Each structure stands twice: as structure tokens, then as C-alpha cells.
């Protein structure tokens, strides 16, 4: 329940407003929240969905032998990540307990079983804003981003 609705009900209980007035106010609050939700949905729909996760490693400009330098270029489809995350549902319960305990030992209080399909979608959507850009001591560049 929103704060506004709570206030209206408190005013009604205190006898400051009539039931009709409270109803009108509640309708007005509902209309306002509905409009806000609609705007939020339109904003999220217009956001371009990420298709690939990219990991690149390129040598620095000052590399002695650029032709034989280490290079990595990986492109993973988001659909594959989504399918991979669903694999957690296939992990036997005993193994999940072990994974949860290992996470807890590292200070991460998180239950893998709590991951729901809607959470995965939210997680993947959030990846769209992620960008990791690291430059090593020898000039090599590591980039992790979505496109």
C-alpha cells in the first residue's frame, strides 16, 4: 500500500474526511500511480534489448610483436546466457546446498534456489548498462560490454 493511501485511510479513521471523500481521493491516487507505471513501462520498452555479451582483449599499442600478441574476441548471445541460467533448476538439491554454503563462507548470503525467471529477465536487462574497461600494465585492454 502506498503512503498516500495509508494517509487517506488514517484521515478516514480519524473522522477528518467522509467515506465518499476518501473514495474520491483513493481513486485519484490510483489514477496517478497508474499513469506513473505506464510511463515507466513505455521507458523500459523503448530501451534496446541487448543481444550479445562481448569480451575483448587487445594488446597495447606499444607491444613488441603485435602480430603474435594475445587477443581474445568472444561474443555470447544473450539467449544462450538465459538458457544457461535456467540450468540452475537442474542442479540436484544436495549440490545446491553445497553451492549455497560455499557462497555463505565467502560472505555472500544468497540462495541460488531463489532465482526466478522474472529475476533472470531483470538481471539480463540490467546487463545492458554494464561496461567493464580495464587497461593492464603492459597496455593490454580488457573490455566486457553488451551490444
Amino acid at each position: 500500500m502506498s503512503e498516500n493511501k495509508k494517509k487517506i485511510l488514517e484521515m478516514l479513521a480519524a473522522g477528518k474526511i467522509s467515506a465518499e471523500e476518501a473514495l474520491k481521493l483513493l481513486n485519484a491516487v490510483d489514477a496517478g500511480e497508474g499513469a506513473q507505471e505506464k510511463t515507466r513501462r513505455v521507458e523500459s520498452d523503448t530501451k534496446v534489448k541487448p543481444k550479445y555479451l562481448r569480451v575483448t582483449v587487445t594488446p597495447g599499442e606499444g607491444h613488441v610483436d603485435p602480430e603474435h600478441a594475445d587477443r581474445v574476441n568472444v561474443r555470447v548471445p544473450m539467449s544462450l546466457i538465459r538458457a544457461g541460467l535456467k540450468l540452475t533448476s537442474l542442479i540436484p538439491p544436495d549440490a545446491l546446498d553445497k553451492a549455497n554454503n560455499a557462497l555463505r563462507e565467502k560472505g555472500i548470503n544468497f540462495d541460488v534456489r531463489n532465482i526466478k525467471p522474472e529475476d533472470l529477465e531483470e538481471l539480463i536487462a540490467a546487463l545492458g548498462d554494464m561496461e567493464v574497461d580495464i587497461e593492464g600494465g603492459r597496455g593490454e585492454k580488457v573490455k566486457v560490454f553488451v551490444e
Partner: protein
Amino acid sequence: MNWPPMLMHVKIQNEKTRFGLWLPLFLLLPLALVVLIILSPLILIAIIILWACGYGRWVWWALRCLKVAIVSSWAIRGLRVDVQGHNGVVQVSVI
């Protein structure tokens, strides 16, 4: 609509070996489907027997694994791995 992967290219190259393979997945997928259809009566019988013997949980788990495997193989289209080191090159791409 998501299309299944059509071709897979694997290339491994180092000082001694030079290996490249184009795998026509568009030919393998119908073949796998035909094999699945042929084996489906046997699979069904195995499922019924295992279920009756009290291994229903494992049958359910195997079916879910199969589903995830199919979904994953469908989603692999667009994957590209290109690793180049001073000793060699490994490239995998799914088209």
C-alpha cells in the same frame, strides 16, 4: 522467430596443426529429429518402466535436461569465440 543454428565453423591452428571444419548443422538437426522419432517408442517404453519402478523423479529430471539441451542448442546461434595467442589460434563460430 529464433532460427536454429545452421553452420558451425571450428578452426584450430598452431605451429604443428592446422585444422578447420565447417559443420552443417542444418543437415544434422533433421537427422537428429529423425533418430528421435525412430527411437521415440523405445524411449516411451523406458519412461513407463522407470516410472513404474519408482524412478519417476529421474525420468522427470532427464526430460528437463533434454528440454534445456534443445533450448541451449537453439540459442547458440551467434556465438563467436576467437582466441589468438603467440602459440596458435582457436576460432569457433556458429552461424
